[in-house]
């Protein structure tokens, strides 16, 4: 047990891979076993990850569950894992959503079940690795390979223009990642030049001295990689396509976990490595975030496709998160981290419901629905809760995050925060309008007449998410008390660079002029 706890992160990361080997001998025709076994294994993984939560010491910013071995001594790269309050919850979110999305796919994935479950488990490994890695090279390894399973999931089980979407997704994010890689390599080399040691240990790289001008350039390089992943306006156009065509499980993971990596990257890498540039460019990033909030909301309003609507709503929500992060106040960053979870939970749930609608009606066009509430009360109730969580209704999770973000951001950027906050109005507009057109009013589509309510499996699929929506909404302290120390430490580590912020601003202003 002691060994298990000490190496819990490695166990978590590699358990899905081991699961794959358990699944490999299963005959591909035995879909029942494949589905249930993979779901069970992902549940076991989720339960393992709960140990992280149990044994995680709150009220400290120190990395926990640290594991460190030499990996590539020549590059100074090590197998260095560890989590703080931020990555803890992202890992929990990942294991939960993987379980949920596997459970949700029983009806949706009809072909090549074996390949599907294997890819999902493979994806889980890489997602967990990305969150746990404290070594830049290790991080990058996990970060980029993650694209591949996701690419297959979209391309093989997607709908409509799936290949275009999958390829667009990969190329878009890959381009960003490679530019980001350049920035990371550059910092790595700079650190070598200064100390004479090769190291990819992120904690050591934080101490690299980088001149202001260089920070700006490197920040832009890292920014591209992370911003595309988030996706920040105007790098978002891969997202609606990928989300729309992906299978339900793919959309859930994409929205629930993959989008988080961009923000996580900023939090773990871009800002602490290049604090001065981060402070100097924060207004610019916040501009983009606020534009993204409104733009996503506006475009959502006129969408005709359910999934595309939810996808654009992600653009809007991620804008909030970036606003919170770059406002650089403890409150707003706490809010951003909470909101990362919330977005994963709420948008994940929305995709699950849209998936259920699609499974039953074989359409995603909003106009083809209507009057479903009457046929499926449980579905309606749970779907509504998810919609409201996404709207940011107080008492549910979304509110806590958005409120903290806005409260925290308000002091530094009052006008932009107000503009961004108006996004909560539009969120209500597009989501409730969608909900009304889909669920309420009379039945127009004959297919809706035989709309089945959720079965037990589907209820179990969404139930953890629904419970979390209420739990975070009413009692976020277990989350906040773990996140807050991390965030405070994050800020204390970079805050002394804030003093030069105006100077840099002046400089860049001059050089631009």
């Amino acid at each position: 047990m002691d060994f298990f706890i000490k190496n819990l992160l490695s166990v978590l990361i590699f358990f899905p891979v081991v699961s794959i080997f358990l699944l490999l001998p299963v005959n591909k025709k035995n879909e029942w076993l494949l589905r249930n076994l993979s779901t069970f294994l992902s549940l076991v993984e989720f339960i393992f990850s709960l140990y992280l939560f149990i044994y995680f010491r709150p009220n400290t910013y120190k990395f926990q569950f640290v594991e460190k071995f030499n990996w590539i001594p020549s590059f100074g790269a090590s197998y260095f894992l560890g989590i703080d309050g931020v990555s803890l919850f992202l890992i929990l979110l990942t294991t939960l959503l993987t379980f949920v999305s596997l459970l949700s796919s029983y009806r949706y994935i009809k072909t090549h079940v074996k390949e599907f479950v294997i890819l999902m488990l493979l994806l889980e490994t890489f997602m967990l690795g990305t969150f746990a890695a404290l070594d830049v090279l290790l991080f990058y390894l996990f970060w980029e390979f993650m694209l591949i399973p996701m690419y297959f999931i979209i391309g093989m089980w997607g709908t409509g223009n799936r290949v275009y979407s999958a390829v667009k997704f990969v190329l878009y994010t890959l381009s960003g990642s490679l530019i980001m890689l350049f920035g990371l390599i550059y910092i790595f080399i700079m650190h070598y030049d200064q100390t004479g040691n090769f190291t990819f240990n992120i904690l050591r790289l934080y101490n690299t001295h980088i001149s202001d001008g260089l920070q700006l350039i490197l920040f832009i390089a890292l920014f591209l990689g992370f911003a595309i992943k988030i996706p920040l306006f105007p790098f978002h156009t891969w997202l609606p396509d990928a989300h729309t065509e992906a299978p339900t499980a793919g959309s859930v993971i994409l929205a629930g976990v993959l989008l988080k990596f961009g923000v996580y990257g900023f939090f773990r890498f871009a800002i602490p490595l290049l604090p001065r540039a981060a402070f100097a460019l924060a207004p610019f990033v916040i501009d983009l975030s606020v534009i993204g909030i409104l733009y996503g909301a506006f475009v959502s309003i006129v969408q005709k496709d359910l999934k595309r609507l939810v996808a654009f709503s992600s653009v809007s929500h991620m804008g909030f998160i970036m606003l919170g992060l770059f406002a650089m106040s403890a409150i707003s960053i706490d809010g951003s981290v909470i909101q990362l979870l919330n977005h994963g939970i709420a948008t994940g749930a929305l995709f699950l419901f849209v998936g259920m609608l699609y499974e039953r009606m074989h359409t995603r066009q909003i106009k083809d629905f209507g009057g479903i509430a009457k046929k499926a009360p449980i579905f309606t109730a749970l779907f509504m809760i998810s919609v409201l969580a996404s709207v940011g209704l107080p008492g549910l999770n979304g509110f806590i995050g958005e409120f903290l973000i806005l409260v925290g951001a308000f002091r530094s950027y009052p006008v932009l925060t107000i503009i961004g906050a108006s996004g909560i109005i539009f969120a209500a507009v597009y989501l409730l309008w969608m909900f009304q057109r889909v669920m309420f009013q009379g039945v127009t589509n004959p297919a809706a007449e035989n709309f089945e309510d959720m079965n037990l499996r589907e209820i179990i699929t969404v139930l953890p998410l629904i419970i979390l929506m209420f739990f975070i909404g009413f009692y976020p302290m277990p989350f906040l008390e773990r996140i807050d120390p991390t965030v405070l430490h994050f800020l204390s580590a970079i805050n002394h660079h804030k003093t030069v912020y105006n100077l840099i601003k002046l400089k860049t202003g001059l050089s631009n002029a």
Partner: protein
Amino acid sequence: MDLKILITWLIPLFPLSGWLLWGLFGKYFKGLSGYIASGFVVASFILSVVLFFIVAYSHGFTDTLYPWVYAGIFKTGVSAVIDRLSVIMLVMVTGVSALVHIYSIGYMQGDKGFSRYFSFLNLFVFSMVMLVISNNLLLLYVFWEAVGFCSYILIGFWYEKKSASDAGKKAFIVNRVGDFGFAVGIFLLFATTKTLNYEAVFAAVPSIPAYTTTIIALLLFAGAVGKSAQFPLHVWLPDAMEGPTPVSALIHAATMVTAGVYMVARFHVIFSYSPAASEVVLAIGTFTAFFAAFIALTQFDIKRIIAYSTVSQLGYMFMAVGIGSYTAGIFHLISHAVFKGLLFLTAGSVMHGLSGELDLRKMGGLYSKMKTTAITFIVGGLALSGIPPFSGFFSKDAVLADIYNKGFYFAWVVGEITALMTAFYIFRLIFLAFFGESKLDSDKHAHESPKIMTIPMIILAAFAVIIGFLGMPPFNDSLFYSFLHTDFKNAYNFAPFVNDTPWYALSFISVLAGLSGIYIAYILYIKKSVDPERIKSIFKPVYILSYNKVYIDEIYNFLIVKPLLVFFDFLWKVIDVKVIDGAVNGIAGAFAGFSVKARKIQNGMLMSYILTLSIGAAALLFYYFIR
């Protein structure tokens, strides 16, 4: 745990458990859920009364149930403030809720969403109770929105009707607009004072700059404008009548819509330190009172008339709190809750008797068929019109007297004119519906409602008669005033009394206005000595304006909704698809073009290969020789 603290938290706990119970297991309870739900709320009511007496005979207190959101310096708990203001509100909220619950058992009998209805209703009571007792702005905001949400689902309770679900959505979104302002106000407040706890905020307010206070107050007031349906965000309330009538009684008359007034009263420190903001409150209140009454004059839908009347009466309350007469405002709030709840319940009873008919033009002569309903309705009408000794007289008079004595003569004049109009439209309704000839469709047989509905009506009617005496004039010596005004002792007295006109002089004018309104209605609709059509044609433009609700909805639709939708469509179809995505795809296309060109070099001809090679070599040599 201290007993009073236990009681405090039990009050919201009852309806909360009711909600969970019906929400999760509603279908197993069937008809029983209504009784148990009512029982829960009655229990809350009894506890509220107990708490009321505890507070009345000792003093208020605060308690934190558990730490809620701690992020950096942002620290808020789930905490309650129990003072005289909140216990009064608690008693009113739980009391009216209990009656409406009981009434609903009869009203909603046989509806297939019976359990769902009570679960939502319980949720609403929970939210409203929490709104009243919350001790910090974040918690207040949470339940501020939560009651809005309950209103949304209850308005759209019959979701199969497009108009119902539209109305619910509209209510939610319009409220969100107000809440947006409210939220920004909270941000600014937090940014200025670093706290959201009432006590700490109030302690800090006197020391913050006046213009900041004004901005904060105005932003908070924006929330009140939305929630309490004041102009220009009043548009949702009339549409909200799509919901079940008891819901209108509870949410859209007695409790939720008054939350705005409660909030201003609760934040009297902030508002009183900003005379400018208070003036805005007064102005908006005054205008809305008049404006809504003006629209109510010509409507034919009973519920809409009462709804506009609610908007108008809320205007009175804002007038009161706008001049710093917080006690008077709360008094009008309480008495209005009783008589307006009563009016809605009786209107519901009428609907119930007429199988859902709401059009005045199709009623008439109901008095003989529904005596209890008619009498209680008339009691409510008299209270609304401000005829002594009904409660409306005392409360409205308290408000108007303060307005006059504090020197806001214009507002006072408008208030009196509105009082006249109020009496007119409500008695127009009464006369058209209960008297005269029956214009009912032959297939509709009006009948009295069951006891379970009439008893709550009678109880409310009784209260509508007696509750006014709590504010026995002169108001500033009354029981109610002496009980409550200590809660407002921290307010800055920005509008001192300038006159000392005796209450009976002012009351005389008010009563005169009310009576003349009734008389005009009597002439027009009972005596028919003047043909209403003639009046209509004389004031045709005014009539059309009033009848069409001053075209506010159309203006919003034309000026805001449609242009925005066109703009959003443009954003998506042009900016997103063509510009951004077009650029991305364009780059890909360009590379494909390059590829075609590049492959042309590889044309299969040996000669060109050799030439390429030689040119390459020559270029390299050239490069090194020119260096």
